């Protein structure tokens, strides 16, 4: 299992990747949609964790770009922003829509569920 984490909060995304690594989950991280596009050119990912609100290109737009290159890839949205409308739309588009701050055990459960769906 290999994940790509995309969030413009560098200290958040880098530490989250480190914590996932301590749990034997390989996770690369970047802080912009542009860098995410570069990463998926060279690496295969099973799941992407995308911050919804990022400068210039947000998570929802990035998901469409990634899906063109990696059809069927699973997505989890992450946000600090939380209107009901955002939640409904985000939940319909991605496997899960999580609010910051997150509990890492919940996140891992959601990752496993999302990838389990892929196998089923």
């Amino acid at each position, binding site marked *: 299992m290999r994940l790509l984490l995309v969030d413009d909060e560098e*200290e958040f995304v880098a530490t989250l990747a480190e914590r996932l690594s301590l749990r034997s989950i390989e996770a690369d991280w970047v802080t912009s949609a542009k860098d995410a596009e570069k990463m998926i050119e060279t690496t295969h990912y099973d799941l992407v964790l995308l911050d919804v609100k990022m400068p210039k290109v947000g998570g929802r737009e990035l998901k469409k770009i990634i899906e063109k290159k990696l059809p069927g890839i699973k997505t989890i949205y992450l946000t*600090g922003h939380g209107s009901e409308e955002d939640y409904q739309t985000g939940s319909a588009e991605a496997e899960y829509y999580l609010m910051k701050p997150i509990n890492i055990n919940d996140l891992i459960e959601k990752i496993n569920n999302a990838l389990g769906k892929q196998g089923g």
Partner: protein
Amino acid sequence: MSNRIDPLGEAGLEFYSKVSASISHEIKNSLAVINESAGYLEDVTLMAKKGMNLDMDRLQSLAGTMLKQVQRTNTIIKNMNRLAHSLDDPASQVDLNALIELMINLSERTTVTRGFKVSAAFSDTALTITTHPFFLENLIWLILDFAMNVTGDAKTIELLPVKAESGARISFTGLEKLTASEFNDFQTERVRLMLAALNCTLQTDENKGIITINLPETITQPVQ
């Protein structure tokens, strides 16, 4: 009884709500960083108990990260508090440099998310006027929102506060795609009421891409 909502009140509530949503987002981001840092400390502490060596440099860096986030959140809350208190008096002495800095900070998440950079060239001298701070903040917010639709490809907006004979001026520059027609559309009822409440006027220079607020030194009829 009229069902009509007061446009000025509605504009103020909309502004306050948007800023509150943006602030809560910022605080959540900061909490998320602190949460992961604390989580990492918990992880490595548990591993250390099982015999793993601790990386002291990494621990020091995490402490620095958490302190930085506490300062960041403190600044966000201070700004929120300043905005809240700007409704205390219908007219008060305002340092325009400080008010503009506050508005750039409060709108930063919104402007950065849309790919814009907003800055200000602050005057070296104090620019103090007597005005209704909340309405002025609201007006600046509305102009920034409008300005983001009419900037050039550089996507930068610079605010220039200067002293004027009759009071002060705040210019918004970088609006290369500004047209008279779009500016007319911008001047809705709520904007016109806000200008009246502030006893101020707007002027544009489409050739130079500038909108300017002309503010009096003292508002004559404070809104109650």
